[in-house]
């Protein structure tokens, strides 16, 4: 559709609704570990670093396309190998100042992945300056390649406190929610086109279930 109909305001609207879907409804995320080239000791000829040092991990909201692990059987026996695709909104990365680079790592569940590619997959209505999202393809990294603290949720098979995510809190364009800083920006509200929502971020948590059977929608207004 032409620029005559898709103005910067429509672009902002599209980006805001995409954020609303990912951050306020879906709630999937990856933890991104940017490798520090300065802190990592990189071999000057081989350009490799067995002991990589990473910057603080960043929580990135995204849509994740889970793929079952590939079972490989070769001369070393059998091994399971994961590949994953994560779709991250370009505007959100821009807002947070995150640059996704090949060779960085991220965790999804209890598995670490190396970013092998992260192309900008689509533009918004063909407008080259407005990228829609990037598709990060991650290949499972072996323990010798990268290892860091694992952030949940991981699996209900584990007993860690964060193994199962019981609380999901919306962001709704607020700087922070009950869980902490969000870094979320809704451009239409920044530009004064829309006002802030009357109510704050809602959540699904154990607080929403008076019978303590499980998490449920929790309406703070009714508290």
């Amino acid at each position, binding site marked *: 559709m032409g620029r005559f109909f898709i103005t910067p305001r429509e672009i902002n609207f599209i980006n805001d609704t995409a954020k609303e879907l990912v951050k306020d409804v879906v709630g999937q995320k990856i933890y991104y570990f940017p*490798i520090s080239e300065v802190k*990592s000791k990189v071999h000057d000829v081989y*350009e490799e670093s067995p002991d990589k040092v990473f910057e603080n991990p960043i929580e990135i909201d995204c849509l994740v396309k889970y793929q079952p692990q590939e079972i490989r059987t070769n001369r070393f026996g059998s091994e399971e190998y994961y590949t994953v695709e994560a779709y991250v909104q370009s505007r959100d990365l821009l807002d947070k100042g995150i640059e996704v680079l090949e060779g960085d790592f991220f965790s999804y569940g209890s598995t670490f992945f190396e970013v092998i590619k992260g192309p900008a997959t689509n533009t918004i209505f063909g407008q080259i300056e407005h990228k829609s999202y990037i598709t990060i393809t991650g290949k499972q990294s072996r323990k010798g390649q990268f290892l860091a603290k694992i952030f949940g949720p991981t699996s209900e098979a584990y007993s860690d406190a964060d193994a199962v995510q019981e609380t999901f809190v919306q962001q709704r364009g607020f700087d922070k929610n009950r869980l902490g800083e969000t870094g979320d920006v809704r451009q239409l509200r920044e530009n004064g086109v829309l006002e802030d929502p009357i109510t704050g971020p809602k959540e699904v948590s154990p607080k929403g279930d008076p019978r303590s059977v499980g998490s449920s929608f929790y309406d703070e207004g009714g508290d």
Partner: protein
Amino acid sequence: MGHQIKGEKVIKDFDGNNAPEDFDIPSIGIEDIDRAIFELFDKKLSFEVKHKGTLQKVPVIFASGERFALTRRKNPIRDRENTLILPLISIMRQNIDFSPSQSNKKTAIAFREQENYVIKYRLSERDRKYQNIINKQGIKHQDNVSSQRHFLSNTPAPGFGVKPDTISTRRENANIQFSAGAKVSLGEQLGTNIFEVIQVPYPEFVAVTYDIVFWTQYMQQSNQMLETLLVNFTGQGEEIPIVTMGGYELVAFFSGPFSNSGTNLDNFTEDERIIKHTFSVTIPGYILNPKHPGMPKMVRSYVSAPNLSFGVYSGDAESINYQPERKGETVKRHVLEDLTNIKEHELVRGESREIIQNTIINPFTKSTKTEFSKIRTRNQRAGETVASSEIIEEIERIES
């Protein structure tokens, strides 16, 4: 060194702790050879091409680094869109030939296992003390040099007891008193000295082959790079001497022709125009004194023995014939010691392996009990006495 199984060689020959503390030699290994070929193309030959009126150094990549390192290179080889900027030189390691053929380059010296190399022959630290004892120059009036004047008593000959803060020796050595034969000189008088001999193992030979690719955008750039390489060949062959960081000299042998198999000028309908020239380089090298975790230090130090000493011993108790020491006895002999090496349990100078029969009479019951004990020797010449209930007296010593 006898012929041994290769896998055992490192373990056996480099056991022990006789590595010199103040001496080492640089190591050379595969990484050093890789670095040498990289620096040959990156620094020594220094390929440059002219682009838009300016000289531009051609980046060299050792194929290929980790993704994160390539995307964050200090000297970027990609543009903002992460596309490689040409021209480029890539070096990719191929075969490592450890067979006698050495990628048809052979070796200049024997490939087979040889004796260790003696790389240094020097006076031992202990030689200074030894020279003070033997007093080769016949110095009389120096307290820290042995002299007959330092004896307290003349009997038994040649003397007995030493004055405080002086040293002397009972060695049959004319130099403990000034003699016409003594040579007083500032010149070196090497002979009766303790020498330290430092050895390194014979190198393991490897020939490493690399594929080099010149990747350019323009034929003119390609010509410049190829000519730069060709005019740098030295000697009659197509070779360039290189030096590793440790100072080891190697020769890089270039194999032609420059293959243009990667070039797509015959058909680039659906591709970008690519000009690639490929050739290979073989570097016969060797591995010497590698320093990896788990590897022992391979430089070894041995000390010469300027005096050979044979002793005749006697003891009061009955000596039982030598029998090979059993494992339990070995453990018992060292039960109060911290062993750091399996060879430490072996006998060293000053220890003997005989077992003596010791009969103990109980003073109350008058019963007798027979015990077999290991013995410690007493060696006054070494200045030490090991207290033991079964002391062996040295009754004669033959020295050479």
